[in-house]
């Protein structure tokens, strides 16, 4: 399947990215959908404005237990966040054919505010995090 069907229901459920994603400035609306068996840990994010564009999202806190993104207040305010607990943070995963090579981008997580349906990708200043953290450790 390509892009999600653009009916009213999906549009209501969509998250608005006022700035798009980095590298995809025209992708302003995404639908978050379940991945079979993925539960809350793995989701997919399908673009409504750009055909055939989708991303795999992972719950960064489940995969990386000490993950502590320091989200800039101004960027949270832009999402209409009044309390930090309002947001849901997900990381974009790069899942190549070889699963063991899968990585998550902890440097630029995506912050969702389910209350306002707004979201944005945030680049953290924390140098501990990069765009490529392995989801699974290398087999020796």
């Amino acid at each position: 399947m390509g892009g999600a069907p653009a009916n009213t229901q999906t549009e209501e459920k969509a998250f608005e990215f006022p700035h798009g994603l980095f590298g995809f400035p025209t992708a302003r609306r995404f639908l978050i959908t379940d991945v079979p068996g993925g539960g809350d840990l793995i989701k997919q994010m399908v673009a409504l404005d750009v055909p055939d564009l989708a991303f795999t999202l992972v719950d960064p806190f489940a995969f990386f237990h000490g993950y502590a993104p320091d989200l800039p207040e101004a960027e949270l305010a832009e999402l209409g966040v009044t309390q930090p607990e309002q947001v849901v943070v997900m990381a974009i995963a790069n899942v190549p054919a070889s699963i063991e090579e899968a990585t998550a981008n902890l440097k630029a997580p995506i912050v969702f505010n389910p209350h306002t349906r707004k979201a944005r990708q945030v680049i953290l200043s924390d140098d501990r995090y990069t765009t490529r953290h392995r989801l699974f450790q290398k087999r020796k």
Partner: protein
Amino acid sequence: MLVLTRRLNESILIGDGIEVKIVQVRGTGDQAVVRLGISAPREVTVFRKEVYDEVVAANRAAARSQVTVPPGLLPAVRVSDRGSAEGEAAEAPSAPEAERSE
């Protein structure tokens, strides 16, 4: 591109609220290093360009025409979900080790 010459401790202003000041200059030629002080409103995001470029590249690399989760991924996640230290799921360190690109 607008090119301006500035001396140490001189600034440029961009728009209404952004000031970029030359804080330190050391070295010459290819070894020259300039430290900039940036004052900007909180809603203005400031990054090193290479960090921005890296995020753009990471997004492009992660983009798919459709998401298919490979069969081996989910069982591994379930292991990690149970909090088991065994199995394939990575035990994430508190400051995860980065996979550096070449």
